[in-house]
């Protein structure tokens, strides 16, 4: 891990969220890390959280993850709770217990920010997905979303995933770029990350995805 980190432009920032007291989350190395992955149906939230869970399992940790299917596919809100550590009970993260919020969409980051633990980190793709309810004038998109994030979280990591993905030649790489950023904040071996990313993306796009992953890593 340290070897890989030295490639980055800056020392690896550690995820120093306070671990909420009580239960399995108490104490030392045995604590459970909580990552809340959010976005909108069709953005690839589920695949990203699947990859994260797999990396955690192959790193020798217990993992639980929970999400809701069905109606979510129709442009609705998607959340995936990922928890890993020595022993995980609940598949859901308690409010105020997420050490990391990974959001694929700007307004969704604001919606779920309350799940962050004190001192928790947020990685936010600044892309906006505007629902039809805004088009018909029933609701409005929170224009100050970025401002709210900056006010509420210390140093939110804002990523223009789409711009970078297009630079790399494929808008569908947003996912992998964000996972690259995420990998810098979690104490899971880079080697395993790369292996799982390689396995989970279509074969023809393997190289491109690894490039996107590295690009994500280089952002922190």
């Amino acid at each position, binding site marked *: 891990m340290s070897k890989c980190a030295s490639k980055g432009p800056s020392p690896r920032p550690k995820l120093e969220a306070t671990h*909420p*007291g*009580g*239960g*399995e*989350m108490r104490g030392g190395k045995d604590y459970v890390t909580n990552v809340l992955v959010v976005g909108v*149906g069709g953005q690839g939230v589920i695949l990203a959280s*699947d990859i994260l*869970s797999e990396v955690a*399992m192959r790193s020798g940790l*217990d*993992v*639980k*993850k*929970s999400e*809701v*299917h*069905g*109606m*979510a*596919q*129709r*442009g*609705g809100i998607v959340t995936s709770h990922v928890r890993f550590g020595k022993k*995980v*009970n*609940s*598949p*859901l*993260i*308690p*409010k*105020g*217990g997420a050490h990391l919020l990974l959001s694929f969409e700007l*307004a969704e980051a*604001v*919606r779920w*920010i*309350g799940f*962050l*633990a*004190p001192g928790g980190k947020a990685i936010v793709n600044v892309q906006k997905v*505007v*629902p*039809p*309810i*805004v*088009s*018909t*004038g*029933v*609701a*409005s*998109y*929170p224009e*100050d979303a970025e401002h*709210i994030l900056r006010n*509420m*979280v210390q140093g939110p990591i804002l990523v223009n995933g789409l711009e970078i993905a297009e630079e790399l030649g494929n*808008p569908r790489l947003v996912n992998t770029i964000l996972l690259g950023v995420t990998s810098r904040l979690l104490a899971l071996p880079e080697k395993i990350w790369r292996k799982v990313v390689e396995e989970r993306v279509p074969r023809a796009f393997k190289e491109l995805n690894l490039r996107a992953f590295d690009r994500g890593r280089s952002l922190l």
Partner: protein
Amino acid sequence: MKEILSGNEAVARGAYESGVKVASAYPGTPSTEILQNLAKYEGVYAEWAPNEKVAFEVGIGASMAGVRALVAMKHVGLNVAADPFMTFAYTGVNAGFLLACADDPGMHSSQNEQDNRFFARFAMVPLFEPSDSQEAKDMVRIALEVSEEYDTPSMLRLTTRVSHAKGIVRLGKPVDVASRAFARDRKKFVMIPAYARIRHPLVLERVNKLKALSERTPLNRIEWGKTSVGIITSGVSYLYAKEVLPEASFLKLGMTFPLPERKIRRFASRVKRVIVIEELEPFLEEQIRAMGISVEGKEYFPRIDEFSPDIVEDGLIKAKVIRKPRVSKSHLQVPQTASLPRPPVMCAGCPHRSLFYALNQLKGLVLSDIGCYTLSVLPPLEAIDSCICMGASISMAHGVAKAIEKAKLDEKRPVFAAIGDSTFLHSGVTSLMDVAYNKGNVKVVILDNRTTGMTGGQDHPGTGRTLQGEETNQVDIQKLAESLGITRVRVVDPYDLNGTIQTLKEEVAFQGPSVIITNRPCMMLLKFDPSLVHRVDPELCEGCGTCLRLGCPAIVPGEKIPPKKEGGKVRYKAEIDPTLCRGCTVCEQVCKQGAISKAQA
């Protein structure tokens, strides 16, 4: 070997490892993935049945024939399959039979949140409640063994947070279960009253034997901790409680019908207070109280919605077991103005959108059904008046029309039923038969999108493909309606807005039943074709908002048009997102300025 599996994947794996040979289901969130995954295992026959009752009966047949069977459904699916279930509980099995049934507390994707544990008690069959994926897999095997040993169907009750949560599961090798001979035992399987009277006492006797099992099974285990509070819990609630109050004593129930009375007594006698933590109904709590044991529970924990660690924590605070939340929940308060509603919507290019847009022009009463099209109740379409259960649209519309006719109600609006193809084949056929048979005056719209859309696109008897994707016979819905006695069956292209409205008008003018079938497939089945993408000409668009009111996710407000006079309304020119537009042309048809056309000339 370890793998991360969802609860549903684990059930499928468990069935495969336990030698299940026949499985049948009708898709329904959150149960759908059980069969989808079971179909991948070699040596297992898995099928989509037209409905849950059929699926259940296929399973009974397989069990009678001598091989282990699994049937899967969502909670409300068991209402449909209740008929075979209740009597199969009398006959018992030949080879093992497992009903895997997934409740949906919180109604993520359901019309109610009934607690199906009562069904097991109602039918008097053993009930198993896993907490996570590993338990789900293990309990499939145990439940099948219990089924054979106690001559009973077994029930595995999942919930959304078990079915769709993932966890690490140790994989095992499939066991070789010897097939049995077909069970020709008429007094056991032919439930004429005389023979059913023989079976009923056996059912009661069986419950007593299962009670003894419930006392000794390690699935019902005591985890001693502090004795100031003893928690009795099951399913996913166990995990939440364990997280919030790990130091307490626990009676973790994996087999929840029949209950282990002696074990519960022993547990209760050793702790100061007993608190039951269970989602939905006080199923355990009331039975334990009926044993004369003093318990607390629903006075602290809600009877509605799904649980979470936070809800369990709140309940324990109310119960004064813990004093304050483990984590401050107040450090991050999101301003109300920042919350953006994001209701699920019909996809761009969805053929349902234009059909309901057309129906709205006829200003009828629309009795609807269960599927993606139920989303038409939401703005901007607000097109339907009811949704109760699968197949209800047609029969309810028939009831409405008959009531109007018989009571001479002052109601001139035409009566429509709106139902999808999969739902129609599930349980709309008999309703349509009723309309034809009883000379109803209902206009039945069958939205034939060639798939089971809401659950993610499963095949059904009308698609011409099996669960495995093999080609097969395809129900001809048009001919089926005709053979039921509907003389007027029309097929419309829902993308042709005027044509659809015209056809609907003609059928409304006709006195008697009609069927109107829409013939555009679900967008999820089709490849994205960039040559069909449309665009708005900003020179021509006046920002009237008509296209925006279709509620298509591809049409978004773009450039601001300043109000014509001071204080007037700000308008926005429409824009089409080229990555979402599927080229259905409906917006082009409603645009009065002719501003919308294909992007590529």
